[in-house]
């Protein structure tokens, strides 16, 4: 994996940003991660992960609309960049490739 290496939580956040499409801001991302994994990061860690990802050029951001429960404050909405997408694809490919090489022996008992 050339260039960008990202950590566990970073990967989760990046995936969430991709999957939330146009609705990806910190609180939402946190909720998605809570629902889909066993991790429950608090919002401040999500903030700092997002800042990190932006610095690495894996996500873009812009200020979006506001809502009443935010006291009229705008959200920062994140979108996946091409580089971010490539990293996710890369991770996925690596995983799949390695996974497929697991010896069949361990799969015994499970019928394919």
């Amino acid at each position, binding site marked *: 994996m050339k260039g960008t290496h990202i950590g566990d939580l970073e990967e989760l956040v990046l995936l969430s940003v991709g999957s939330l499409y146009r609705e990806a801001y910190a609180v939402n991302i946190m909720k998605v991660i809570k629902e889909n994994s066993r991790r429950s990061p608090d*919002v401040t860690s999500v*903030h*700092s992960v997002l800042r990190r990802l932006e610095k690495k050029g894996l996500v873009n951001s812009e200020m979006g609309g506001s*809502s009443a429960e935010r006291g009229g*404050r*705008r959200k920062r909405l994140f979108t996946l960049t091409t580089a971010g997408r490539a990293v996710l694809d890369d991770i996925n490919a690596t995983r799949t490739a390695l996974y497929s090489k697991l010896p069949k022996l361990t799969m015994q008992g499970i019928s394919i």
Partner: protein
Amino acid sequence: MNQQPPKWANRFLEWFCNPELLEEIQGDLYEIFDEKLRTGPSWKARWTYIFLVVRSFRYSVIARKRNRKPLFIMTGKNFKIAFRILWKDKFNTVLNILGLSIGIASFFLMGNYVLKELSYDHFHTRKDKIYRVWLKEVYNEDKVFFNSVTPPRFERLLEEHFSEFDEVIQVNRNSYLVGEADERYNESVYIISPEFFDVFDFKILSGDPKNPLPDRNSITISSSYAIKYFGEDNPLGRLIEVQMGEEIREFKVSSVMADPPENSSISFDLAISNENNNVIFSQGAMEAWFSVSSETYVLVGDNSSIATVESGIQDVVMGYLEGRVERGQYNIGFQPLTDIHLNPGIPLGFAPVGNPDYVYILGFICVLIIAVACINYTTLAVGRSLKRYKEIGIRKIMGAHQRSLISQYLTESIAVTFLALIVGVILAVVLLPYFNQLTGANVTLAFSPTQVLMAFILMGVMGIAAGFYPAVILSGQKVTSILQGGSGRSGKNNFRRGMVVFQFLITVFLVSSTLIVKKQLNYMQSLDLGFDHNAVISVPLYPPPEARSLTDFVEGTMEKGQILKERLTQYPDIESIGMGSHVFGTPGWGNISYTDDNGAYWSYNILFVDPYYFETFGIEMTEGVAFDPESGLDKRQSIIINESAARYIGYDIAIGESLPGYNPGEHAIIGVAKDFNFESLHSEIRPLVISQSLGNIYSMVADHDYGDSPSPKLVFRYTGNQLSSIKDILDREWAAAYPGEELNFEFVEENMNFQYESEVRLNKLVTVAGILSMIIACLGLIGLAVLVTNSRTKEIGIRKIVGASVSSIFGMLVNSFAIQLVIGAIISIPFTYWLMNNWLENFAYQVNIGPVVFIVSCLISVAVALLVITFHTLRAARNNPVDALRIDG
């Protein structure tokens, strides 16, 4: 119920959070808070909010983007521009570098001297655990004996009673004749405990490093003495003859040690084991409590403290001395090893003690010179800001932040200091020999990693200190005011004026201090000391080998000295040959004390002479008569006292009476000598008793103490003018009278001057510092003069056209500096007066400072400064106004 997050948490968040991030973060936190409010109790929501605010308190949230660039970013670009600007204004740059490098060079030289004085005895690895023992006997206010030299029995006493000590070391020294029969030197031999080298870090070069002094017949010598005695041969196992009393003993060289470092209080070249003590001391002296002879050092164990020893030591002492002294009269104390060199509060042991005042004064002067140099840079840079307004304006319009401008200007000042550092170090290396010669201080420049690091830290500090104010001032200008051509420089000018005043204050202070120190030294030299030491030569005589008691030692030596005296009388250039136990210029004349039958305590200095001593030194009598050489009675019984002694005794001394005492012995006062300063002028004249023999006085003396060896010296006046011929005469006659012994002779005047060595050295250093700071200050003034006249070129031109004369314009320009110089000079007066008065208190005989010193130093400083700026201002004043007005800008 409170539906809002806690206010203070919000305020905190708003305070620390980067404004660019605030909206989203605060929004997210509000959203979560809202949700918690809906799903749970409000306190839980508030706590969550607080928790999240605190969690947000991290660098990435605090840091402003603009801030990401550090203030002191020294990019290559900055340096490139800095060097271009420095190159463009060469005159200014040279002035700056010169000033700073002089400051740095003197800082290096003087700083190293100060460091050396402060580093005494710090090279021992266990320096914090080593103490020197002192003994203080306090019987009443007048009767105090305080000594760093202790009874020999202390070594065993401390070893036996205190497990806190890992080692107790005895250090003693004696003068012996060392060497073969035909070539003997009078050497100081140290007698030390064999464990000495386990405690102190003196390097053993050859021989067994674990046990350099294996037995009582071993001797350790320094490497320079190995060369002195054995040349290039291997000294190990060689024999050295030492005359101890009547016996000549042979010691085998068991080890060679490196010469003790210059900054070591304990310093010796020959050392034998104190297992020889039974030969050196009588049994009585070994057991004595009230007779001191050796230094004692202790090494405190790792887990023990000296405090427990100090609290227990009285009990131990009383266990031995119950009935002889009262509790609290016989005190034993401990002085840290590293305290010895600079603590004059505790009496001298074997090592000379430095004067901490002088060390601190020098350190202070170092800082002053550096300050003067830095101020120079600051004033010049602020002055130059006039020239650079446009540059700043353009930079700001192009979008430069104040921070980047500051960093640019600091780069400039650090670049200048860097160049100055290089020049300064070169200067220091070149000037080192002159500095050492001038001051007599043996300073070496060791470029150790720490020193190099310190130099760079100094450079950084100086660069920032000197450049910070101009950087802030320059970069803080408002673009609009610059481009409008307004200056708003009144505040700056005040600052600059203040700096010039301060600089001059320091310069005048140093100049007038120099003058005051000089005045005091001259005063001391011109004082009538009560004797005439001009061209008097003193030759220490050797005691007869069979001398055992002090009487033998003094009277026997004088008797033996007669041979040399007889031989010398034949030379017409040699006059007034006398002998005496002490000679002027050596401190520590003998002291005797006793208690009389009324319980009163008396203490006098004592001098043993032959009848001709008075004539040699031209000592006058105020009452009675001097010793009659023909009178046998005088030789046995007569004594002479000085005026101070007569006053001390109190009643009108009648000729023929004796000193007050319970057992006055067979003596009678035959005369009173006019007071003469037998000690240095740091102290008043003490009562002195002069006698030809010991017996008449010593019958009643309870205590005596000799700082200087009472071994008699032959003194005579040399009226010839060939130094080499007196040396020839002495060599020839000495060899006949004392075959095989080493001849030493000294000019009394030299020794007298030696007493004021540290004052003379101080004077030289202050003079150098004064001149240097004057040079630096003048460099600054030249620069300022150039700047001010340049910035007023047009004004001068217009004035001239309107009809101003050259002299009035010159006056106007000089005026702008003169006031500051005068103010600086005036402020320095009370400051100097106070400081120098403190210094003068070191002397019993003080010169009156008087106003002349200040007038002279102010005049000198102001005159030199004006002279320096005159050249340039005159040129500006005489310029053709047409040229001035043509300048565009």
